[in-house]
C-alpha cells in the first residue's frame, strides 16, 4: 500500500512513535514551515519604521515571558502576580554585569548569548526560591506570596545604589560576526534573535508537554493528592514549575535589557505583572498557542488605543486627557470581557477555526 503523507486519510499508525509526531501530515508541516519562513522574510521585503519594529520586538519578548507564565498558571495551576519581577531578575542580571564591568565591556557586548542564558538560570533560581511557599500555600494565598516578591523586588531595586536606584542602567551595543550592530540594524537584529529563540522555546515547550515533565505539571494542577499517589512529588513539581517560569522570564528580561539597551525599574512593576497575566488569560490558559495570541492581542490593542486617543485629541483638545485613561480602561475591559465570554481565550477561537477546516475544504 502506498502511503500518501500529504493527507491524513488512509494512513494508519502502526507504531506508537508515529503517534508522537507534532505534524500529522506533510501538508501541516509545509504550511507551518511556510509560516515560519514568512516570519523570517517579511522584514526584508516590507521594511517598517524603527518605531513599529520595536513594537514587534516587544511582542516577541512578551511571548517568551508569557510562555513561562502559561506553563506556571495554565498548566501547573499556580498563580504568580510577580512575573514582571522575575523578568526584572533576568534584566538586572545583565545590568549588574554592565554596572560592574562597564556597559561596553567585552562580556556584555560579545558574550551576550551567555548572559541571556545566565539570566534565564538566575530567573529559574529565584523562581525556585519564590516557589517554596507553594509547598504550603494554594490559590489566593499563593498569589499574595508572589505579590510580596514583586514588592520586595521593587523596593530592593529602588533603594540599592548598585542598581542605580531604579534609574536607567545602560547596556552597550552588541557585536555579531559582522561587527557592531549599529543604530539602524538594532531592532531588525534583535527581531531575528528573539524570533529564533521563540521558535526554539516553542518547540521545546511542545516537546516538554508530551513527556513526564509536562504531564506532571498538569497532574498537580488537576489533583495534587492523586499526583502524590502516582509517584510524583507534588511539592518538587510545584517548585520546578516556578523555576521553569522563572527561566522563561529571565530570558525575556535579558532580551528586554538588550533590546532597549538599558533598563529602569518601571518596566518591572506590578502593573506589568498584571499585564502579563492579562496576556496569558486573553491568549488562553493551558494552551501553547495561547502564549502567542495573548501578547499580540494586548499589544495591538495598546497601539490602537493610542491612535484613537491621538485622533480624538486632534479634534477635541479637551479630550487629550482621555488618552491617559483610555489605555488602562480598555485593558481592564478586555480582561473582564474575556473572563466573562471566552475564559478559554483566543486559543479557543483558533481551535474552533481549525475544527471547521477539518472537513472543509476536503481535508480528508
Amino acid at each position, binding site marked *: 500500500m502506498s502511503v500518501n503523507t500529504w493527507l491524513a486519510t488512509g494512513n494508519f499508525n502502526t507504531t506508537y512513535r508515529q503517534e508522537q509526531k507534532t505534524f500529522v501530515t506533510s501538508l501541516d508541516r509545509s504550511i507551518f514551515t511556510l509560516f515560519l519562513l514568512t516570519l523570517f522574510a517579511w522584514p526584508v521585503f516590507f521594511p517598517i519604521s524603527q518605531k513599529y519594529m520595536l513594537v514587534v520586538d516587544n511582542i516577541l519578548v512578551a511571548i517568551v515571558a508569557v510562555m513561562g507564565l502559561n506553563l506556571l498558571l495554565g498548566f501547573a495551576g499556580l498563580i504568580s502576580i510577580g512575573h514582571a519581577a522575575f523578568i526584572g531578575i533576568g534584566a538586572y542580571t545583565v545590568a549588574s554585569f554592565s554596572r560592574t564591568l562597564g556597559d561596553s565591556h567585552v562580556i556584555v557586548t560579545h558574550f551576550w548569548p551567555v548572559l541571556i542564558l545566565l539570566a534565564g538560570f538566575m530567573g529559574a533560581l529565584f523562581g525556585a526560591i519564590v516557589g517554596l511557599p507553594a509547598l504550603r500555600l494554594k490559590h489566593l494565598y499563593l498569589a499574595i506570596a508572589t505579590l510580596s516578591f514583586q514588592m520586595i523586588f521593587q523596593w530592593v531595586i529602588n533603594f540599592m545604589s548598585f542598581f542605580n536606584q531604579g534609574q536607567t542602567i545602560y547596556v552597550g551595543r552588541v557585536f555579531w560576526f559582522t561587527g557592531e550592530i549599529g543604530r539602524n540594524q538594532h531592532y531588525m537584529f534583535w527581531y531575528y534573535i528573539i524570533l529564533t529563540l521563540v521558535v526554539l522555546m516553542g518547540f521545546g515547550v511542545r516537546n*516538554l508537554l508530551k*513527556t*513526564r515533565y509536562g504531564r506532571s505539571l498538569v*497532574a498537580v494542577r488537576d489533583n495534587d493528592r492523586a499526583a502524590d*499517589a502516582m*509517584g510524583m512529588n507534588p511539592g518538587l513539581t510545584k517548585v520546578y514549575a516556578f523555576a521553569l517560569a522563572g527561566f522563561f522570564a529571565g530570558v525575556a528580561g535579558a532580551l528586554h535589557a538588550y533590546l532597549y539597551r538599558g533598563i529602569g525599574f518601571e518596566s518591572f512593576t506590578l502593573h506589568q505583572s498584571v499585564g502579563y497575566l492579562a496576556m496569558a488569560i486573553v491568549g488562553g490558559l493551558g494552551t501553547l498557542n495561547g502564549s502567542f495570541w495573548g501578547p499580540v492581542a494586548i499589544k495591538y490593542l495598546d497601539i490602537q488605543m493610542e491612535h484613537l486617543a491621538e485622533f480624538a485629541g486632534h479634534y477635541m483638545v479637551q479630550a487629550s486627557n482621555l488618552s491617559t485613561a483610555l489605555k488602562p480602561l480598555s485593558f481592564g475591559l478586555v480582561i473582564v470581557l474575556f473572563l466573562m465570554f471566552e475564559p478559554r481565550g483566543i486559543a479557543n477561537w483558533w481551535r474552533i477555526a481549525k475544527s471547521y477546516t477539518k472537513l472543509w475544504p476536503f481535508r480528508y
Partner: protein
Amino acid sequence: MAQLTVSDVTLSFGGLKALSEVNMTIEPGLITSIIGPNGAGKTSMLNCISGFYHPTRGNIFYKDKKLTHASPHEVSNMGIARAFQNLELFSGLTVLDNLLLARHQNLKYNFIEAVVFYGKASRVEAENRAYVEDIIDFMELEPYRKSLVGNLSYGVQKKVEVARALTLAPDILLLDEPMAGMNQEEKEDIVRFVLDIQKEREITVVLVEHDLGVVMDISDRIYVLDFGEVIGSGTPEEVAQNPKVIEAYIGEG
C-alpha cells in the same frame, strides 16, 4: 513471610481515635479484605498504609522497609498502589494521559532529553505507551482511550481509577471500595477484574468493601474493623461465625 505488616498502629485526631492498636499481616498473592461498619476506620487504615496519614503510634512495614513516615509518592514508588474511594482522577485529561501519568517514575530520561524529544525520550515514551495499552487492554477500556475522564460515566471512571493504580506496576494494590455505587453488572465486572489482577498479574490485593456478598466470595483473608479496633480476622468462614462480628453487623448481644 508477610508482605505487609501493620503492627500496633494507632491513629488519633485530637481526642478521636480513628484506629487503635491495629495489627494486620498481608500475605503475598492473596486477596485480603478489610470490612466494617461506616466510620470503622477502613479508609483511615488504607490512608496510613499509602502515606496520606502517618500513624500516631505503631509501625507499618513493607517486607523489611519501614513506611510509617513515608510520603505517598515514596510508598507508591516502593510498589504499593492505591485506588481512591472518591474518584481522584485527573478529570481534564484523557484516559490515556491519566494512565501515562502513573508511569511517571518508570520514564527514565532527563529534562534535556525531554525538551529535545528525539531518540531516548521518544523511544521511552513509546515503550511506556505500549505498557499503558496493555493495561487498557486488560481493563477493557479501549473505547474510552481518548475521551476526557470527566465526561465518562461513574462506572467507567471507577474502572479507570483501578487501571491507573495498576499502571504503577505495583506489588500490592490497595482498592478502596471499588464497587461502591455500582449496579450488579458493573460489580460483577469489577470482581472479575480483581480476580484477574490477583491470578494473572500476581498482585496482592487489599480490598476495602461494603458489599459483604462480594467480600465473602472472593477474599482469602478478612479483617473486621469496628470503632478503630480489629474485632475479628481469618478466613471468610471463620469471620462469619465470629460472635463479635455478628454483633457489630446485626447488633444483637
